[in-house]
């Protein structure tokens, strides 16, 4: 399937920003199951300083704010071709060693909630148990449309019993690591069948299963990612795969508007 994607993030600030930087992880990955046909990211109110590939193989672009700007827009646009592999991505390739994906982070720290949840998981094979984990979380945490609480970790979301895709994903990777699987966070795009315009990127999880390699789990929707899913960035948690990580001085309050369009060609 071939998807065209357009993603605009627009910030407006209450006061001029004297200095600021944003790390962007907005370029889809090229791999076995997806190919980037064309992609470009443009910035208004700032400029690109540099780019590099990080240890999760994400393309990171560093953008600085123009001096005293009161708005910044990042516009990404392109075309990606995807194969349906039923969520299976295959063997791990670096640069990060596989063991790194067993590490917990502040947002994916297991507590009694996640441990309790993990104990209810059943299944014969590794894959069965991971699917069971996905269903258990899907059932326990209601999907709620709205703003994600970026500082919420897996435990907080689980205790609240509701959350957005980010929270489902955090709970899944926390539990999966607790149960012995390397796991990671994926931020990306999902083509919706009923509409083109969206307000947020999607997130899902991947766990590493012996013999198969990395396998995807869209916990929020309770399904395996297929050819509607575009993988953009991966990391140990949201913080490492976030489309934007920023820091600024000045500017006071900010207003954010995000417009995403994902359409089949």
């Amino acid at each position: 399937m071939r998807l065209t994607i357009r993603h605009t993030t627009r910030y407006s600030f209450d006061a001029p920003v004297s200095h600021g930087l944003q790390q962007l992880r907005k370029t889809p990955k090229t791999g076995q199951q997806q190919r980037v046909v064309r992609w470009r990211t443009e910035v208004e109110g700032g400029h690109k300083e540099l780019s590099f590939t990080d240890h999760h193989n994400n393309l990171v672009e560093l953008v600085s704010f123009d001096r005293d700007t009161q708005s910044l827009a990042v516009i990404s646009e392109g075309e990606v071709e995807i194969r349906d592999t039923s969520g299976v991505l295959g063997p791990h390739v670096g640069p990060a060693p596989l063991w790194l994906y067993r590490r917990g982070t502040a947002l994916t720290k297991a507590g009694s909630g996640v441990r309790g949840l993990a104990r209810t998981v059943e299944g014969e094979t590794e894959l069965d148990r991971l699917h069971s984990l996905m269903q258990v979380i899907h059932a326990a945490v209601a999907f709620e449309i709205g703003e994600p609480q970026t500082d919420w970790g897996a435990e907080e979301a689980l205790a609240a019993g509701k959350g957005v895709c980010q929270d489902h994903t955090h709970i899944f990777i926390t539990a999966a690591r607790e149960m012995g699987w390397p796991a990671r966070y994926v931020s990306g795009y999902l083509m919706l069948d009923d509409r083109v315009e969206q307000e947020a990127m999607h997130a899902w999880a991947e766990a590493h299963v012996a013999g198969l390699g990395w396998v995807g789990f869209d916990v929020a929707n309770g399904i395996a990612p297929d050819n509607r899913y575009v993988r953009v960035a991966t990391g140990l948690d949201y913080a490492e795969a976030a489309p934007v990580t920023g820091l600024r001085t000045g500017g006071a309050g900010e207003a954010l508007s995000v417009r995403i369009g994902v359409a089949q060609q």
Partner: protein
Amino acid sequence: MGDGGFFDEMWRDAGEVREPYRRFNAWFEDENPRDLLAKQREAEDLFRLAGITFNVYGRAEAEERLIPFDIIPRIIANAEWQRLSRGIEQRVRAINAFLHDIYHRQEIVKAGRLPEGMLARNAAFLPQMIGVKPPGGIYTHVVGIDLVRTGPGQFYVLEDNARTPSGVSYMLENRETMLQMFPELFVRNRVQPVQTYPADLRRSLAASAPAGTAGRPTVAVLTPGIYNSAYYEHAFLADQMGVDLVEGHDLRVVDGRVAMRTTRGYKPIDVLYRRVDDDFLDPLNFTPESQLGIPGIMDVYRSGGITIANAPGTGIADDKAIYSYMPEIVEFYTGERPLLENVPTWRCSDPDALAYVLDNLADLVVKEVHGSGGYGMLIGPTATKKEIAAFRRKLRARPGHYIAQPTLALSTVPIFSRAGLAPRHVDLRPFVLCSPEGVRITPGGLTRVALKKGSLVVNSSQGGGTKDTWVLED
């Protein structure tokens, strides 16, 4: 004059002076002790006027203290030094190769020579360095290897300081002070010079500049600021190298480079000799609250736009648990037997080792795996029952945080006191520079001396002093 079974570097047991000290002793015997006491005080005044001070952690901001300086030099014969420096060079090359390996293919883990857990569960392992190629392939541009001696020709490596070793300014100022006060000594003894260190450091840093640097590389020293305990040294090195001394707020990312704010605008830096810890280096990538760092410097580094010396993530080579694997590490990367010995080390994470350590606490030195500066350690033989009991609890609670070593019979060198010469325990920190041009070791290094009788703790933060260290020419 050797004291209770300790090896004295100046005297044999029979009160006979050892060869390297022969000329020095002849001079010393002709001197009037009262004049020397006056000289000792004069040295202190020189240090104070020059502002050679350090700030004590956890004390009032303004408190600046002198590190006591002892006028009796520590003297090493050239042959001995040559042996040592071969061992140091071997070790430093291995550390660099090790750092490259663990941040790339991790062959040492695959070969089963280092357990994966030593990296996976190590807070000093910096994932952001995975796959990064430091300019020139150098991770540790400046290394300090702490050595102790227990007998003739018997040296041990106590610690590797691969992240930001300090003390080199004292090595240089100690020599400067001795040259000023006792010029005649340097006529009688042919002492290998140390004064080229700043120029060597500058050359070494410049040689490590990113590929494609045009012209003479711009080097700067990054300091946490004037309240840092080692600020004097930061300013001293910048001054001696003739480069700028910068703080985080002087720098920002401009046009894909790290640039410093000058009176004429922003000027890009090619090599940053940083004396700021990894955690505080970049608030965008590490600790967001850090006021000391430069947002985005890691991004510039990862895109190849700057050399950071030492490279982020080198701290893992300082780690005391990794230390216990150094013999394997040296062999794995050099294919040779280690020339320098490690102190036997029990890793308390291993249940058998823990049991042994708990049974023998009164005879052992216990250290925190990530600690430094002599803080948070237990010296069994001098500890009280209460201290030992407290450490027993700590060890049981978090065994993985500790290693233990036998109490070493550190050698002694006399210090000059009112009562004349008195033996005190010493260690030695030679300074090593690495660049694509090679490894360079300054002859000697910093001798730290425990001024308190019988004490084995040489750290300046805990009552240690320093001595000028001589390596004689043949």
